[in-house]
């Protein structure tokens, strides 16, 4: 699962912590069988994260 296709969105399994790649038609499920996935934060070169001055 380490080879990441840039077009597909990467998720993180809530149980085993491995990266999961899914397509729109895929079932929301990790290889370990867990069904809660977190979306992985991805670097966005257009909008780099920055601290707010508030």
């Amino acid at each position, binding site marked *: 699962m380490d080879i990441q296709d840039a*077009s597909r969105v990467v998720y993180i399994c809530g149980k085993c912590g491995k990266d999961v790649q*899914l397509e*729109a038609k895929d*079932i929301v499920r990790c290889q370990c069988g867990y*069904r809660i*996935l977190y979306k992985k*934060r991805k670097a966005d070169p257009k909008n780099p994260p920055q601290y707010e001055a508030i």
Partner: protein
Amino acid sequence: MEAVNQHRLPAGHNAQVAVMSYSCYDIEDALIMNKSSLDRGFGRTAVYKKSVTECEINQRNKESRFNERIDEPPTKTHNTKKKFIKKYHALDSDGITKVGAQLHHGDIYVNKKTPQVPDNPQIENIQIADTPSVFKEKWPYTVDRVLIINNTNDGTEKIKTVKTIFRQIRRPEFGDKFSSRHGQKGVVGLIVNQEDMPFNERGWCPDLIMNPHGYPSRMTIAKLMELLCGKLGALEGKFKYGTAFGGENVLQVGEELLKRGFHYQGKDCLISGITGEYMECYVYQGPIFYQRLKHMVIDKIHARAKGPMEKLTRQPVEGRAKDGGQRIGEMERDCFLAYGASNLLIERLLISSDPFNVYVCEICGMFKSDSVCRGCNTDKVYQIRLPYCCKLLFQELLAMNIKPKLQLVPSHERQEYTMN
């Protein structure tokens, strides 16, 4: 404290408090805050909001092609409008918002689509309606986490639930609520620049000024003790017990303070930040643990000019969530009456609320649809303005077989009429 590790992982700050009066913006439990303290991070909190978007199976037709689904955002073509595409800026190719994206009012964070079940299920081309989750908050939030859950038991259905958690960092502002642990809650009444705050010869300056009128009637002895013990604890670098039920001995604490060159009652001589002169009194000052409460102005602020109206009465709707108006209630009306502000009363209750023009026959006193009364066979039908709600009441009375007859008086005689 120890049982829940509150002394190690606190939910507030040890504010340096001066118990004194300042600028009259501290009456009725209001607090004065030091602007520089706020800059340094005093009372800064993260606010989290959660939203759940569920894709459901269509109840009318359980074929999987009628299930709700999450689609990828529309791609930019030469004829799509910039405004249209801008709503989708936060979305990834899976149709769900990016983690870390900033969402503004009107942005779409889950691009959900609902296929419409046609009357004839054999039809191949089904219409798909946009039912996206639109961000409704007026101030921007950052996407903190996105969870995708498959919540069907057998795992064969492709039904998703998306939970999105938003985060916003907030700095204290006017009207935000704070409290010590003694039930002494108060709102921020004024934020003062540090140079205008009082200070002492050691360079000490309060984060917060509290009015002493909070003490006598509430009798929160523990707060006084917390301040005093906290002051000594800060000097010694030790934890102290500020409770009034078997905590530190106040007399001993006072003596310890005296040994360290402080007033034994915890009072200090302060210099006014405004005049630069010594204050004529000693000010009780020291640290008190303050927590920020969740009632924040930004969640409650509301104003409207024109806006949505109630369907039945054509009066403005109620409540902030519905962009409602401010009600002129019975007591407010009483104020206008007592003041004799009749024109203001007419404006508030009629013009700004639910004005409506009706035709009224002078003879039978009933509402007419045009300027002729066929029942009385007359054209003495005049247009008058009255609240829509009033018209509604009259019609409801008529439906109950009660006739509210409108008696018309020419406007130039109106003064005389009311005098009698």
